[in-house]
């Protein structure tokens, strides 16, 4: 008996954080900085900042296939490779082997995963936009999903809090549709982009701004004291940045949490279940499988933060059954696993730009333009609900233009050493409505090699998204035409939910425990010592990139959790 008590003591912490990605890192930082002893559990391998960025400093010729995906890598990473060739030798170590970690598609679902320290924060797009006031009211207004239990004002100071820590480069514009944040100096637009901005303002009264991006243009003390430095404009972020130029959990929140000496990280550790104590009416810990040895171990804490990534967080809840929660932990409402949202993308237009022959730029900008939502905004009214924004930019063509050009030989070769003409491309990011029939569940029979049930996806875009897509393409063409650009070609690639890598909504926040999973502080309605603060918590999706909002929600919930612990409300 004493042995058991000792073991329990040894494995006991103030808080457990499941996952080390964008929100797990932030949860660990905020909790440890408030004095809590935290155990972070990461299912994948350990990646160390700088030393494990194996390809970061490689020359182009050091990469055997020079950026192309080999057929064997494509086979191993069959889901990841759907994201347009990102799984090449530069970055493939930071994407999960799908063959070892399969999932089931009742309807096609593009599930992009990153099982290692830092998760997807290793190679996120770094675009960071605050939600606007109406985003939080949209569900209530048009009757889709349930109402958010919070409003912009609840999150405002937490946006500022995380923006300061993360470091966001951007331009304040004073727009209601895209609230300004706390910005480091903005990156410049190229000359044709400035022309595009001017024309859109004059002719369509639409603003264009430079992307708000988590790259340090002017590091502050909060960054340099963690060893983070200025962006070097190599635009090789997804390889991992040895300069700490962009924000990830590995370069930012985890070192900040480690500095408190209150963080312990377990790697290669798959959380298979939450331990629920029926008498106490609370979750007391987690069951963990060592992915290498298959050993099972239990860990205990006063509070638990679930930050495993929206789909895995929901899967963990569904897999944690007890007498109190026979259909899965916190699933009284039957909403766990439902309402999968994402952003739909891969639709837009490109064009050739005449002129600007003498304009060029030095360095590679890891950033693009942003055109904020203009549909169903102000006096605009469409046949579909909600809206979309665009990302894209103009640059001079490189030697790749030779592949499609006619000719070969000495002159052809010489021409390709010069910058080509300018071209522009913009692609939309559209809001996805919450729909309870877009869901994931656990397979009744199929299990992975650790004995954990496989996730089954049964979700697809709906009529609203498909109608919006047509406008996303047409509006892109219209804007490029308005700016006087030539040879406009539109595109609409067939994609599925998931490919935006903004999968969210599977344990939504809400005002009513009957129709939602979490309350206004991300606590599970029926078990207040468990917090879900990754994308699963989202009640609607907006059309802007979500990470900064996930982080703001996480910091807010962590602050609340510690206050509640102090008040003894979570006993």
């Amino acid at each position, binding site marked *: 008996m004493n042995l058991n008590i000792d073991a329990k003591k040894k494995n006991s912490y103030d808080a457990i954080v499941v996952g080390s990605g964008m929100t797990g890192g932030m949860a660990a930082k905020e909790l440890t900085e408030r004095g809590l002893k935290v155990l972070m559990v990461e299912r994948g391998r350990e990646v160390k900042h700088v030393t494990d960025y194996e390809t970061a400093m490689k*020359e*182009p*010729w050091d990469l*055997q*296939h*020079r*950026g*192309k*995906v*080999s*057929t*064997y890598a494509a086979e191993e990473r069959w889901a990841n490779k759907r994201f347009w060739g990102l799984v090449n030798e530069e970055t493939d170590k930071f994407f999960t082997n799908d063959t070892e970690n399969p999932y089931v598609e009742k309807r096609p679902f593009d599930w992009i995963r990153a099982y290692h320290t830092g998760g997807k924060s290793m190679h996120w797009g770094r675009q960071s936009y605050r939600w606007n006031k109406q985003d939080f009211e949209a569900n209530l207004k048009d009757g889709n999903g349930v109402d958010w239990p919070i409003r912009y004002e609840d999150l405002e100071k937490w946006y500022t809090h995380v923006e300061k820590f993360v470091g966001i480069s951007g331009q304040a514009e004073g727009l209601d549709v895209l609230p300004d944040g706390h910005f480091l100096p903005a*990156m*410049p637009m*190229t*000359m044709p982009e400035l022309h595009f901005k001017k024309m859109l303002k004059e002719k369509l009264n639409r603003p264009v701004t430079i992307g708000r991006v988590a790259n340090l243009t002017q590091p502050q003390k909060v960054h340099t004291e963690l060893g983070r430095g*200025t962006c*070097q*404009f*190599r*635009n090789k972020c997804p390889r991992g940045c040895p300069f700490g130029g962009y924000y990830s959990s590995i370069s930012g929140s985890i070192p900040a949490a480690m500095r408190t000496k209150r963080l312990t990280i377990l790697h290669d550790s798959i959380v298979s279940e939450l331990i629920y104590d029926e008498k106490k009416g609370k979750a007391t810990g987690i069951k963990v499988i060592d992915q290498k040895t298959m050993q099972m171990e239990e860990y205990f804490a006063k509070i638990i933060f679930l930050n495993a990534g929206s789909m895995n967080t929901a899967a963990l809840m569904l897999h944690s059954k007890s007498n109190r929660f026979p259909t899965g932990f916190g699933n009284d409402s039957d909403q766990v696993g439902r309402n999968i949202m994402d952003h739909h993308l891969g639709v837009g237009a490109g064009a050739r730009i005449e002129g600007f*022959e*003498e*304009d*060029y*730029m*030095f*360095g*590679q*900008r890891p950033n693009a333009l942003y055109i904020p939502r203009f549909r169903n905004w102000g006096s605009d009214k469409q046949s579909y609900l909600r809206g979309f924004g665009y990302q894209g930019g103009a640059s*001079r063509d*490189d*030697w*790749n233009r*030779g*592949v499609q050009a*006619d*000719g*070969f*030989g*000495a002159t*052809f*070769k*010489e021409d*390709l*050493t*010069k*910058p080509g003409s300018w071209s522009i491309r913009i692609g939309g990011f559209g809001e996805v409505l919450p729909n309870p029939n877009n869901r994931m569940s656990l397979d009744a029979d199929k299990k992975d090699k650790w004995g954990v049930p496989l996730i089954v996806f049964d979700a697809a875009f709906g009529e609203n998204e498909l109608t919006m897509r047509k406008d996303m393409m047409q509006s892109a063409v219209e804007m490029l035409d308005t700016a006087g650009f030539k040879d406009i070609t539109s595109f609409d690639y067939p994609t599925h939910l998931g490919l935006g890598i903004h999968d969210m909504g599977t344990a939504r926040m809400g005002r009513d425990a009957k129709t939602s999973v979490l309350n206004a502080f991300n606590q599970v309605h029926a078990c207040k010592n468990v917090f879900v603060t990754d994308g699963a918590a989202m009640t609607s999706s907006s059309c802007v990139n979500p990470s900064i909002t996930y982080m703001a929600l996480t910091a807010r919930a962590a602050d609340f959790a510690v206050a509640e612990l102090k008040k003894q409300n979570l006993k």
Partner: protein
Amino acid sequence: MHRRDAIKKVALLLGGAFSAPTLLAMNRWEQVALFDESNFTLTDLQRKIVAEIAELILPKTSTAGAKEAGVPAFIEMMLKDCYAKPEHLSFMEGIAALEQDKFLEMTATVQTERLKKVEAETKTLMKSGFKGVPFWRLMKELTLLGYFTSEVGVKSSFEYVQIPSKFELTKLKPNQKAYAY
């Protein structure tokens, strides 16, 4: 299945009728080294043809040509590692046609004319909705990729900057080379 039937079947799967070079190549097929997806390989003669074509696309001038940059071996490795059967077939089809016409025995001028013809045919072929990547396109994209990302290609063609450290707008100077990063 007889090899020629197999090729016909693949061509049908690819959605296209036989191109002229395919018909010409038909008789050569039996002599083309047997290959499957995991075992793509070229004969010595085919390697020489690939090398000549790569060098005609990017010849040695005041800077190195494709051969010196190691492009021919790169093309074969890439075809093997990064492409599947449809591309293997179209590549073999193209190379077999040139092999049959004794490409290596032509003068440089005739070789150039011949490749111009292949390029023109390829354009027509791609416009007609050919699925997969035709021989000439494979040759061209792999030659350019192999050369302009090789050490000698990058350093002699561009102003190579490993760590720019800044992003700024500039004006092009006369004859300025492109930056590579």
